[in-house]
């Protein structure tokens, strides 16, 4: 019965690693986009798949004044198609800032667009967009917890049967 005694130990280690992943995974997921030479009147950004509120940090290298917009994917695609944000509605917007560092809530999981543009009539040489999803990741946390609980129950069950 070697396999049966090994398995709960393995499950416990697997669960502990999964719990760690719930914290590490949102941090190491690729979530950074540098933008170069952004002209006034144009917008650049990302379409990102969100499952929960998203922490966004947007900053220009020379402290230029910028505006950032957060849209759902339908409006984001419409904005690309039309070439402007005139006929689209935004979920959040941060106007005329040198640094945008906010948590943006979302109505439901899905794709969302983050866009940035210069507020003044100038070309910004370099901007970075960083977005990090909430820590810990709730689903991974739950999976890790379930694995540990199962391993503990398995050990108790084995001891009870051994008696």
């Amino acid at each position, binding site marked *: *019965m*070697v*396999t049966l005694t*090994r398995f709960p*130990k*393995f499950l416990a*280690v*697997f669960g502990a*690693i*999964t719990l760690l*992943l719930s914290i590490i*995974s*949102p941090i*190491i*997921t*690729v*979530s950074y*986009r540098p933008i170069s030479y952004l002209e006034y*009147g*144009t*917008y*650049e*950004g*990302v*379409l*990102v*798949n969100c*499952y929960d509120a998203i922490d966004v940090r947007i900053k220009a290298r020379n402290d230029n004044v910028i505006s950032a917009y957060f849209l759902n*994917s339908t409006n*984001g*695609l419409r*904005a*690309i*198609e039309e*070439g*402007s*944000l005139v006929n689209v509605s935004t979920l959040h917007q941060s106007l005329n800032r040198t640094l945008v560092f906010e948590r943006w809530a979302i109505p439901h*999981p899905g*794709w969302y*667009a983050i*866009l940035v543009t210069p507020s003044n009539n100038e070309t910004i040489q370099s901007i970075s967009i960083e*977005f990090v999803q909430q820590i810990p*990741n709730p*689903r*991974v946390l739950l*999976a890790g917890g379930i694995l540990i609980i199962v391993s503990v129950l398995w050990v108790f069950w084995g001891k009870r049967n051994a008696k």
Partner: protein
Amino acid sequence: MNRSLQKIRATFELELDVSFPFPSTGVIFLILFLIAIGSVLLEGCFIAIAIAPHPPGVIPLDFDYIVWAQQNADFNLLAGPLFNLILFIIIVIPMLSAFKVAGPIEVGLLKTLLTYPIRRRDLLVLKVVEMLILTVLPITIGVLMGVVLIQWVSIGLTSFVLLLSFWVMASTILSTSVFLSLVTQSMTKSAFGGIAIWVVLYLVAAVTYIPNVIRGALNPVNLVLSYFNDTPGAAFFGVPFRNPVVHDVWGAIIINLVIGIIMLLLSVRQFRRVEV
């Protein structure tokens, strides 16, 4: 429990303990799991977009690509890491096979193992099943966990076909490597031979102008990826291949599977002849 099942289980536990003494099984599993989940995380889940004023009625050049990328993001988030991990299993599986099949023959451990009342056929099949589970299962769990729990995207039938092609390809690589281990009876020769054969076949599938079914038989994951993305997948000196159709995909998976089964049967036959 049925007597034959009990026997299989006892043999499995013995073989597992001899081949992978604690905690090596768990460590190998967790390392492969972390590599798989890491490859999903590094794949990222965002699409760069840009908006610039343009005349009314004109659709930007990259608009179709952005729509396509968003629609296929769920599938490609699973397909991308699996496609990258093929090269990884091309290296890992022949090495593991050399260590677990050619190794015991080379150093004489097989003689000890065969003193137990185990049929040679059962022993080899159990070794193959163990190695397949130990390499492909953690990768599958890792990418699925990464995609579903971390990136929060949904999986469907397309993902199932992709995973099936990955398992079939891995089992064919494994049975080829086992056969090579039994023929050479040398860890070094079988490990490097297995890696060399599959790297060559991988490159042949990627860069030579051959029919889709044959290309897919050598690398079914690539063909499944091309089929669901509706792209040629690769080009030969700038000339793209024909986009694969559904018959190409299933034909390639079945041919790959048949090659794997034939190699396994040949391995069993070869294993019976091995002198210990």
